[in-house]
């Protein structure tokens, strides 16, 4: 067996943790992912310190908080600097053959850094995120069987669970117990049609021969079918590794860049808002030869910035000082007692300009500008009593809110000073997509 492990890093874009069986979802969306979790280690509390896709993936690959790497928004002004650490580049320099089965480099150029191979079947689509797991797997599996002569790093970025939710027709009938998805008297999604992403859905993928889909339960069923479809793809990939005799010493690291709001908090089928449905992400690590504590679940808080340092330690590679995340490899292996962060601080700057601070009981959210839904600029949730974050108690507990605000602002001030920066990146970028949309006269 080769000394260094192969790595397959999988991000399932927009995969919400609690829609997976292994995260206690009551519907059987994910039998193969659940099995992967039983054979590996599952992180109960992995958080994205920046959403959505571009900030989050930049954090995954740099091991840095978004305030540090500066990429806080889609469509923002910030660009990743060339000197930032970048996981695929480091592994390539360590002798790995590196391959991305991904489209992100079409959005921002730095996502192509460090790859000797980039496989992009989405060139066959008008919209790159319409690429399916089968199209990605076709290329990935062929590559795995034919190319690597030594350790390899493969990044696969699945888009199936990201909108538009258009699962294969053969999954029709699953997960929906309503009676009429296109009932014209159902107005539950009417507010969404006024949001540009909702209007886009209304004008494209929610139009059917039966009429416009109006039942949110049906849209959620489509999302769940996409998970089921993705689950089949994960199984196919794992089967390939087993057939090739590679399964033993290959790390499969499955995670999401962010979750998805169904209709939670009046955010429909999208991934903004700093609530747990979007910032708490699934994470499963599977590595038979790595002596992981199979079947265990780690409860302490981790952040996506920990992924790159952990993978580097698993390959015996020096972790660059510039990476801020912490390796938790030895916890995955059960050699260290589980531990993690007391708190996570994160941000978004695409549809809303906000920060969050979450500890084991409370979450505090502060807005840098009024949001498009008219929410108050300070929100506080008691997650023990209100895990859905439905009851804002900022007015009821002003001292706690003030204390968490001071903690968050103090952290940010210290961080900016240490980085030699003077401007709050979220304040500077603002809610970029909303601003562009408003600029179009909407």
């Amino acid at each position, binding site marked *: 067996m080769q000394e260094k492990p192969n790595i397959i890093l999988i991000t399932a874009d927009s995969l919400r943790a609690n829609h997976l*069986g*292994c995260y*206690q979802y009551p519907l*059987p969306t994910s*039998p193969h992912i*659940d*099995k992967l*979790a*039983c054979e590996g280690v599952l992180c*109960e*509390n992995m958080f994205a310190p920046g959403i959505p896709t571009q900030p989050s993936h930049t954090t995954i690959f740099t091991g840095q908080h978004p305030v540090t790497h500066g990429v806080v928004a*889609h*469509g*923002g002004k910030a660009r990743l600097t060339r000197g930032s650490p970048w996981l695929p580049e480091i592994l390539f320099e360590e002798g790995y053959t590196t391959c991305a089965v991904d489209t992100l480099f*079409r*959005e*921002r150029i730095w996502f192509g850094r460090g790859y000797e191979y980039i496989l992009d079947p989405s060139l066959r*689509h*008008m*919209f*790159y995120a*319409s690429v399916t797991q089968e199209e990605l797997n076709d290329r990935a599996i062929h590559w795995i069987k034919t190319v690597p002569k030594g350790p390899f790093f493969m990044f696969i970025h699945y888009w199936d669970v990201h909108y*538009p*939710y*258009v699962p294969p*027709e053969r999954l*029709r*009938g*699953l997960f*929906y117990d309503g*009676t009429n*998805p*296109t009932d014209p008297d159902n107005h539950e999604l009417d507010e969404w049609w006024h949001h*540009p992403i909702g*209007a*886009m859905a209304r*004008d*494209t*993928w929610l*139009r*059917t021969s*039966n*009429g416009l*889909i109006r039942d949110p339960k049906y849209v959620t069923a*489509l999302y769940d079918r996409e998970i089921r479809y993705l689950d089949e793809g994960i199984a196919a990939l794992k089967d390939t590794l087993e057939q090739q005799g590679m399964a033993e010493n290959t790390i499969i690291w499955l995670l999401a860049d962010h979750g998805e709001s169904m209709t939670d908090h009046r955010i429909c089928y999208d991934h903004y808002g700093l609530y747990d449905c979007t910032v708490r992400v699934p994470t499963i690590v599977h590595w038979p030869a790595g002596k992981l504590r199979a*079947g*265990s*679940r*780690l*409860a*302490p808080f981790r952040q996506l910035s920990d992924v790159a340092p952990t993978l580097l330690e698993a390959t015996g590679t020096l972790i660059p000082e510039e990476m801020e995340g912490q390796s938790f490899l030895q916890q995955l292996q*059960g050699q260290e*007692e*589980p*531990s993690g962060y007391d708190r996570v601080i994160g941000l978004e700057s695409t549809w809303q300009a906000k920060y969050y601070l979450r500890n*084991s009981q409370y979450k505090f959210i502060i807005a840098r500008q009024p949001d498009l839904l008219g929410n108050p600029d300070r929100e506080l949730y008691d997650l*023990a009593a209100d895990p859905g974050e439905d009851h804002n108690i900022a007015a009821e507990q002003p001292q706690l809110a003030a204390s968490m605000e001071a903690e968050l602002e103090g952290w940010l001030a210290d961080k900016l000073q240490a980085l030699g920066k003077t401007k709050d990146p979220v304040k500077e970028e603002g809610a*970029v*997509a909303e601003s*562009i949309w408003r600029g179009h006269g909407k």
Partner: protein
Amino acid sequence: MDLVPAGSVCYRNKSRYRHMEQKPRKDVSEDRAVPEPPAAPPPEDPAPAMGPEDEALVAERLRELGYIE
């Protein structure tokens, strides 16, 4: 706040995190039959689809919003 699901096993340790499961556990889905889609799809299920024109429109809208360069 109890972050561990019901029925799980907690691991005693010296850290501040009291609720963490470190023993292999059977996953809930193991005991559950995984249903297959019905052989004949229900007629009320409209099965959305995306044609190239729809994909192009989605891409155009997201480009307008700055998602795509």
